[in-house]
């Protein structure tokens, strides 16, 4: 991309794996055989988003995703999370032939947030069964 030379303050860079490429361990995969399915964490810091003056806690948000090769060869070009969704579905249809997907979510976890409202009151909000932190990997 052409670098714009406007004097705007340099924003922190968020680097994400490109969604369309097979996986971030592609180079390792090619060189050392199959890279098994692994859970990964994607952390977004609230300081980077400029929210720290009104969100007291947590300091950031962690999203989790699975990447790597699942044991069951459904289709090699799927990423692990899509693979898990399809395999879980097929397992339901043919439980004796197709094993459970390893990286399907196994539990929903609550998430809590502490923040200021318009009247400077502090509010603690808890959402039950809201995020996936645990899967079979």
């Amino acid at each position: 991309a052409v670098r714009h030379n406007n004097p705007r303050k340099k924003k922190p860079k968020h680097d994400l794996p490109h969604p369309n490429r097979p996986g971030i361990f592609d180079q390792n995969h090619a060189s050392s055989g199959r890279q098994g399915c692994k859970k990964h964490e994607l952390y977004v810091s609230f300081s980077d988003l400029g929210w720290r003056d009104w969100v007291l806690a947590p300091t950031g948000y962690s999203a989790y995703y699975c990447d790597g090769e699942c044991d069951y060869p459904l289709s090699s070009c799927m990423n692990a999370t899509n693979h898990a969704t399809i395999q879980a579905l097929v397992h339901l249809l043919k439980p004796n032939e197709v094993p459970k997907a390893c990286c399907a979510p196994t539990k929903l976890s609550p998430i809590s947030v502490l923040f200021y409202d318009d009247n400077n009151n502090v509010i603690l909000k808890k959402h039950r069964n809201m995020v996936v932190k645990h899967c079979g990997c």
Partner: protein
Amino acid sequence: QVEGVAHSSFRRLSGREKKEMQKEILSLLGLPGRPRPHPPLRPPSSAPLFMLDLYHAVSSEDDDGPGLGFSPEVVSHAALPTLSTHTPPLGTVVSEADTVMSFVNLVEQEKDLLQPRPYWKDFRFDLTPLPQGETVTAAEFRIYKTLPVGWRANRTLHISVYEIQREKRYRDPDLALLDMQSVPTGQEGWLAFDVTSASNRWLLNPRSNLGIRLYVETEEDRSLSAGWVGLVGRRGPRSKQPFMVTFFRASQAPCRPPR
């Protein structure tokens, strides 16, 4: 770089993607978006400190997995040591709460000490509207007591908190007793008074919120000013100013669209 290997598959987020990511996180956390405090005043830090302790207590429960209730000791330790022996069962109230709100003390007035006894002090809080589909399970008025100067440490103070139900011109208002505690003069710490019944009425009918009235008496029923016995008001240090905290529970399981 991940595990020492540079990855060409990474790329910079576009502005739109950053906005979408922020919107997703705000939605997931149920946050309304950046508040616009009016007027922008520096709120006392006593409530945020208390709430931060609650947050850590609640989050550690989240990590332990469902169904792990709280023992009151864990939470009352986490939620700053309080002097009070009458603190409601904070443990279960906190772990079952879906929302906890702390309110900044708006108006505070005291009876003129030149007037005849009894002395009193009023506190009124600006209660933000009830969160949708939630009911009050507990509410506390928290006030900090320091060590008063020139008092024998082993005397006992009786501190009582009333709800101001109806104001009358040139006469004392109608009051309803909410909570009362006996505290040694020589001790310091947070006092927590149960004001659940009053806060229920205020949230359902905000106009009935006339605040609470605090009295202090000695063992001989002699009325004292709150300031004389070390009770901190709005002019005290920001980390020790009084506040109210209310615990809510969703009336029915909140249904949010699956993510």
